[in-house]
């Protein structure tokens, strides 16, 4: 009779190895991992020796789907990438198509987009930072700042009618101008959120328990972070001041004055602090955008992509023609390939769009920051405790939707 082999993770283990190490299946649906992530951990006592991540549990074939949808119907797909900051994904996609068709946006559209994107960044960072606090055992802060995320969602709701998966705006601008109620609420948020954020910070940031749990936990050096393709707050925490908003300004970001916060150790505490400071900077940008808000139209003059208002469709021949052409996919799209990237909640969110002149993209590739930097996770938690693995994951802000596309 053949000798029975001990196989763990597809690797044959010797008797000694099996005695020495324990294998723990963390996930796929573990309440502490905030999403569907599976990691098979090789443990020596409570120390992690190795980790084997498995991803793809919520893969929804977005790149295939996008090849079968007209351009304006791809927007709802982008919602579901990083669903904590959907408006950034939506607007990034709109800007990619606008780059392809060489459409110029009025300044007002740019400024309105900046306000929405910065609100989305605040909403994204609120979740990430308060969840780090939850994972160290502080639930109060989480519930406290979540009220403010709710207020951001109410603003989205007034603008586009939805809250989480927003489908905000159109190719060529917004569907309507912001109402007075929206402006009032944004102003209210900008004035009152700092107080809450300050309180959250004073509760967590210099808290001895929190600092002990996060400092020097899950660190990564700048060289390694660059080699692993880190972008966004995680790269900045490691000390590299790369921000797409500054390096390749889009949407008139060059008009605003803000700083890029950076950390030094690239550990969980630095990632927390970088996100904290980014929220302050986002508030600062929103204030500037509201002060400088130019007059003008809330949409560009691109009749071949921007659906005309319903009154025009019913009452004018031209409106009806454009409506029909857009819906039936008869508009002319230039051939070509274009790459556009925006600074998403987690880093450089890129869209590589190849058009063959048809009504759908020939190929659309999303550069999803989570997917790229999550491969460093096993290296970051090697030698750490099991409880540190959880907190490292939440501080990297890995969003399952963006990871799996």
């Amino acid at each position, binding site marked *: 009779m053949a000798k029975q082999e001990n196989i763990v993770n597809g690797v044959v283990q010797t008797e000694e190895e099996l005695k020495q190490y324990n294998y723990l299946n963390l996930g796929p649906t573990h309440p502490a991992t905030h999403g569907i992530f599976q990691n098979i951990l090789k443990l020596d006592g409570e120390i992690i020796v190795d980790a084997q991540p498995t991803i*793809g549990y919520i893969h929804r074939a977005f790149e*295939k789907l996008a090849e079968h949808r007209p351009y304006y119907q791809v927007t709802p797909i982008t919602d579901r990438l990083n669903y904590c900051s959907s408006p950034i994904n939506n607007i990034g996609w709109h800007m990619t198509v606008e780059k392809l068709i060489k459409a110029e946006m009025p300044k007002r559209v740019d400024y309105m987009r900046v306000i929405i994107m910065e609100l989305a960044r605040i909403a994204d960072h609120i979740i990430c930072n308060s969840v780090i606090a939850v994972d160290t055992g502080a639930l109060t802060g989480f519930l406290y700042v979540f009220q403010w995320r709710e207020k951001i969602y109410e603003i989205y709701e007034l603008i586009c009618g939805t809250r989480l998966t927003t489908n905000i705006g159109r190719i060529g601008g917004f569907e309507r101008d912001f109402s007075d109620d929206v402006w009032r609420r944004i102003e209210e948020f900008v004035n009152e959120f700092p107080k809450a954020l300050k309180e959250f910070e004073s509760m967590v940031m210099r808290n001895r328990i929190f600092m002990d749990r996060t400092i020097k936990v899950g660190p990564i050096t700048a060289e390694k972070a660059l080699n692993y393709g880190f972008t966004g707050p995680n790269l900045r925490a490691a000390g590299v001041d790369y921000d797409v908003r500054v390096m*390749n300004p889009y949407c008139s970001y060059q008009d605003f004055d803000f700083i890029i916060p950076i950390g030094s150790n690239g550990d969980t505490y630095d990632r927390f602090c970088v996100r904290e400071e980014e929220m302050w900077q986002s508030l600062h940008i929103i204030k500037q955008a509201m002060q400088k808000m130019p007059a003008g139209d809330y949409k560009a003059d691109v009749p071949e992509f921007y659906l005309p208002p319903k009154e025009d469709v019913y009452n004018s021949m031209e409106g009806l023609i454009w409506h029909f052409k857009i819906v039936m996919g008869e508009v002319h799209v230039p051939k070509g390939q274009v*790459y556009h*990237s925006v600074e998403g909640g987690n880093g*450089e969110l890129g869209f590589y769009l190849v058009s063959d002149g048809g009504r759908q993209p020939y190929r659309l*590739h999303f550069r999803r920051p989570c997917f790229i930097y999550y491969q460093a996770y096993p290296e970051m938690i090697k030698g750490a405790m099991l409880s540190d693995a959880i907190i490292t994951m939440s501080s990297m802000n890995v969003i399952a939707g963006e990871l799996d596309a």
Partner: protein
Amino acid sequence: MEQQINNHLIESLLREQFADAVIQVEESYGMLDITVQRDKIIEILQWLRDHSVLQFNFLTSMNGMHFPEVKNKELSMVYHLHSFFTNARIRLHVFFPISDPHVPTATGLWNTANWMEREAFDFFGIRFTGHPDLRRILNVEDMLYHPLLKQYPLEDGTRTDKEDKYFGR
């Protein structure tokens, strides 16, 4: 004195170094599209990364492409490089026949390439020679085809419980 980096300089430096390997150079929407020979791709990537002026230190993204109509160039890999020092971006393409879908791996240059190559293998069936762990990444392991190839329809072609007549097709 710092040299001004522009697409023209990148092109001329690259042509000077790899005269035979550069097949075609185009510019679209401000970004260089450089088509190079498949067997030279790693050498070129490494040269671009380590060059003292160009310094393309960051591999932004990699993805596969499928062009079923183009004979012997059905598949391609696209590499986006970015230099944090000069803020230049370029795009490299390699084309190869679907009957021989092998490309050398870039995992030796950037760790980033690991999962991106697994993704390209998963969706297009591109084999990366020398890759340490070439398995499917997003799809189930026992899937029999590579779903982003153009011949596969949007819905699962192996399903039998959906009849077209019930869906008006």
